[in-house]
């Protein structure tokens, strides 16, 4: 079996790599938009009550509908209603980005809402400036509480990119399916796919797990 796996790797290297490139391009868009826009929205929703309610509503809606349904709905009914045809890659990137932005926003908002203000007060009464309080106390504490959650979420988003194959995006899962339809070796092909995902997701998951353990211990006084 190992021989066949290596053979598939070698023979379909170009196709697999191009599929992987599409997946990575897709996830890069999803990660960057999610982390930057999501952080900003989370911060804004923490400061403005109305924005906070809107975000919660958005989060409830998005988390109640499966990713696949959102993707299909954006790709088929919505485009038919509006009367436009959008490249499936753009549809997938937009749908997954919106989902990631909402989930990142809610993580950031909750971390800011739950920040124990007493730590900032302790900084204030010891004469620290607001800038020092932010950079030495608030930011490190908030980062420690959100990084593990954000990493787990980004891994989940990476795994969700395979749904893009169902609206014809030529990403790694779709390429694997096409190779399988040619040579019909599902065990070996999906093993190759699993190995590719493992190579990317395992280190990220481990990092998230390690950070969670490390910082949960240090922040237990919270």
């Amino acid at each position: 079996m190992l021989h066949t796996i290596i053979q598939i790797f070698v023979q379909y290297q170009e196709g697999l790599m191009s599929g992987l490139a599409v997946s990575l391009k897709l996830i890069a868009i999803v990660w960057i938009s999610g982390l930057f826009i999501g952080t900003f929205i989370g911060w804004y929703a923490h400061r403005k009550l109305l924005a906070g309610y809107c975000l919660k509503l958005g989060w409830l809606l998005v988390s109640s509908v499966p990713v696949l349904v959102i993707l299909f709905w954006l790709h088929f009914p919505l485009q038919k209603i509006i009367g436009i045809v959008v490249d499936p890659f753009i549809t997938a990137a937009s749908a997954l980005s919106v989902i990631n932005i909402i989930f990142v926003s809610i993580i950031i908002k909750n971390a800011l809402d739950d920040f124990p203000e007493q730590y900032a007060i302790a900084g204030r009464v010891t004469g620290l400036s607001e800038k020092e309080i932010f950079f030495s106390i608030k930011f490190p504490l908030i980062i420690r509480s959100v990084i593990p959650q954000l990493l787990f979420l980004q891994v989940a988003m990476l795994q969700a990119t395979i749904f893009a194959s169902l609206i014809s995006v030529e990403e790694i899962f779709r390429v694997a399916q096409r190779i399988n339809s040619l040579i019909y070796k599902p065990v070996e092909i999906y093993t190759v796919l699993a190995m590719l995902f493992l190579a990317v997701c395992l280190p990220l998951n481990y990092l998230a797990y390690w950070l969670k353990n490390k910082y949960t211990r240090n922040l237990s006084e919270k």
Partner: protein
Amino acid sequence: MLQAINIQKKIKNREILKQVSLTLQPGEIVSVVGPSGAGKTSFLRAISLIDIADSGSLMIDEKKYHFPLKIKINQEFPYPNLTVVFQQFFIWPHLTIRQNLLLPVRKNFDERHFTQLVRLFQMDSFLNRYPSEASMGEKQRTALVRALLLKPKYLLLDEVTSALDVEQAQLILGHLKEIANTGVGIVFVSHALHLASQISDKVIFLDQGKIVEEGTGDILINPKTARLKKFVAAAKLTN
């Protein structure tokens, strides 16, 4: 001098401070005692400007604050000339004990003062631990030393001996007297009457948000009001 005049504070239409006044001279120790819920911590938070009072005024040396106070950008707060040690310590959990002590004084670090206080409060053994690895007593000493390193003129202490054993509490009381002798004015909020009576120049007994009785430490031995008599009797029974 720190002078609070007729401090009033309401929370959700409930009056928690009713015309409470206090005068603290440099080098003086004033204890604020009373049962749980009497408003001791609320009063301390009001005179340290952590919570803004609804009415009354506060004078800290030359600075005057008339309530209600509108917080302005660049408002001149009295910190760290006046500082507070909280009952819940609020030791920053992501920093070691040493880093907790050094963060507020990193710009004008006095190594001799640091070493002196660390030795005095027997902190050498746990300086490199995180707060989550320290005992309650160690955290309480950390909070106190973090404040003392600032060389404040006024030190407001909220139940600082609550997590300490009898020996440690006595040790800290001894140090507080020494600190007061160097000219630091101390407000000592506590419900432990025996500790308050040992160190205080003045005692204020608060109940239901108002001053019921005040005077020297003697009022805890020979109380005049029925309410303080009852409270002292209950404290004696507990001890």
